[in-house]
């Protein structure tokens, strides 16, 4: 099992090569293969997390070459945590993707699965690697896969995907340029090696420019406020399974890289003391929260609303990074997990609703709780988590973020965080209200005479199980968030904060 770090990558990778081969003969075999590969990957990631907890960081030399020369995998608490999130959510989304994939793209399901696996591979590769350039390569795998997956969505997805491609390429190029800038002054590409060389060069303009390039590039990739323009279109029109994966996992991976670069490659002293980046990040994040939520309030389209809410939630996470203290970062990392679960559940739920209703207009969701009781229950739990109602997990990350903001004596962020709870409540309760308390179509003044003869018409089990699993995970993560913090997140926070 000493090879498990690489196995979590190559199992989905090699499976993705097999998918088109198998797909020619037996289309039906693709789905089990994808699910199996991701299942093994997620079990392995759990195993890795376990061994990180018991034995400390794991190093793996690819090709047997020692680090600065070869590529090294370096898995610590932060990585392992992210790998577990990525692999598990992808696993659940893969289970879900079958029915929705069959409905949304019946003739291209084989290549859909192939690219889906490649996307997950790319994301996992980004998470576990300890090499700057290797990260770029996997970033591109994931990005290309994401462009294509978005583009196969409904009408309008094409432009969304194209804009994402342009913006994403700019982001990736900025990242690549940043790597080049670091390389020109250090001569190294290995993160660990860089972190040892860089402190002597902190006053070099090249290093600072590189840092700025990284931040801008990653902000583009994750859709942080002023650079979020691609995000709503892309998330709205992509197939539901894809939006779920992108919103819950892909943006989180960018966040992870940002944390990695800010606090591991560069040290916290540089990121916090030497340059005003944390202040800038928290301001943009604060505006992102308000902007995203106000935009979400006015959206009539369920998925578009969720997309704008994602903009806001990214703001939360970045705000935690910007606060740059233990509490804030704890909240941030916890929110990475929480938002991954919650947004995954919400997007999958939205997909399920679309699957049955054929519409995503919030005003036309009336009486959905009779038609799809389980989906709506899960959706409600996830919505409550977004608002931050205990004991769902969303509350706890918000609590830590508020603590972090108080610790940093930044009252404005406290107010924004509290206010955002209420804004969240406004647009999520709009959905809940429509789905539970309003009949189909317009509201009748007297609704007593409405019989309850409507039968439940739940989505197939393959779609329902991931949604319910995520909803259960939302509550469990909430209840056991203390455990998660004391075993993982506490140690995942970079030293020196």
């Amino acid at each position: 099992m000493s090879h498990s770090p690489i196995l979590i990558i190559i199992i989905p990778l090699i499976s993705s090569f097999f998918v088109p081969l198998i797909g020619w003969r037996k289309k039906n075999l693709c789905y089990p293969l994808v699910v199996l590969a991701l299942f093994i990957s997620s079990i392995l990631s759990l195993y890795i997390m376990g061994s990180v907890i018991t034995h400390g960081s794991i190093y793996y030399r690819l090709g047997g070459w020692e680090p600065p020369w070869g590529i090294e995998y370096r898995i610590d608490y932060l990585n392992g945590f992210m790998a577990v999130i990525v692999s598990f959510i992808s696993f659940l989304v893969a289970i879900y993707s079958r029915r929705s994939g069959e409905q949304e793209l019946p003739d291209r399901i084989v290549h859909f699965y192939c690219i889906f696996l490649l996307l997950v591979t790319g994301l996992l590769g980004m998470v576990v690697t300890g090499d700057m350039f290797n990260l770029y390569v996997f970033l591109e795998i994931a990005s290309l896969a994401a462009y294509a997956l978005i583009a196969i969505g409904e009408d309008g997805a094409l432009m969304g995907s194209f804009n994402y491609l342009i913006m994403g390429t700019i982001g990736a190029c900025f990242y690549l340029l940043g790597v080049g800038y670091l390389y020109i002054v250090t001569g190294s590409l290995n993160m660990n090696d860089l972190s040892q060389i860089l402190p002597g060069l902190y006053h070099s303009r090249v290093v600072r420019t590189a840092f700025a390039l990284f931040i801008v590039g990653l902000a583009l990739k994750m859709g942080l406020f002023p650079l979020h323009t691609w995000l709503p279109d892309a998330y709205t029109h992509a197939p539901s399974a894809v939006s779920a994966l992108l919103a819950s996992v892909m943006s989180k991976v960018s966040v992870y890289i940002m944390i990695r670069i800010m606090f591991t490659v560069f040290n916290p002293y540089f990121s916090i003391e030497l340059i005003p980046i944390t202040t800038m990040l928290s301001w943009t994040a604060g505006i992102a929260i308000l902007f995203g939520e106000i935009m979400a309030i006015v959206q009539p389209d369920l998925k578009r609303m969720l997309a704008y809410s994602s903009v806001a939630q990214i703001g939360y996470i970045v705000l935690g990074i910007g606060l740059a203290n233990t509490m804030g970062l704890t909240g941030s990392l916890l929110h990475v997990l929480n938002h991954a679960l919650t947004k995954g559940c919400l997007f999958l739920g939205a997909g399920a609703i679309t699957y049955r209703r054929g519409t995503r207009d919030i005003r036309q969701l009336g009486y959905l709780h009779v038609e799809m009781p389980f989906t709506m229950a899960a959706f409600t739990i996830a919505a409550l988590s977004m608002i931050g109602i205990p004991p769902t997990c969303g509350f706890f990350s918000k609590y830590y973020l508020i603590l972090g903001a108080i610790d940093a004596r930044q009252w404005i962020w406290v107010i924004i965080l509290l206010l955002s709870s209420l804004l969240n409540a406004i647009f999520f309760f709009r959905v809940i209200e429509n789905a539970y308390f309003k009949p189909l179509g317009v509201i009748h003044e007297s609704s007593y005479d409405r019989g309850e003869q409507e039968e439940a018409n739940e989505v197939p089990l393959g779609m329902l199980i991931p949604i319910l699993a995520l909803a259960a995970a939302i509550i469990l993560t909430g209840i056991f968030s203390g455990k998660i913090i004391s075993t993982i997140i506490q140690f995942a926070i970079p030293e020196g904060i």
Partner: protein
Amino acid sequence: MIEYIISKYNYWIYIVLMMIGFYAMISKRNLMKKLIGMTIFQTAIILFYISIGVKRDATIPIVPEHSHEAIKALEYVNPLPHVLMLTAIVVMVSTSGVALALLIMIYKRYKTIEEDEILKLRQEAGA
């Protein structure tokens, strides 16, 4: 002064090229032009990387196979940026491929590749 310029002009020109590409990417309305800008942008980055690897009075990084003298790193240009850029070129062409596929889909759907016209069409369809 001239020394300084000679020692840096390469970087400057790569920046100029990159900004040409960048400008095309963000302000051109024609989608094909955006892609052309993207290629220029990426190629400029590659130029930058290659510039990192250059050493004065050094030759291409292919070492003599049967020479008995010890190989001196100073005599060969730095191969690492070349390796990285091989990857980057491939990534570039892959991105272009996907982007062109998208472009063709967009043209099939909207019969135009001007961004503002597409926006207008979409607004009309939405309204």
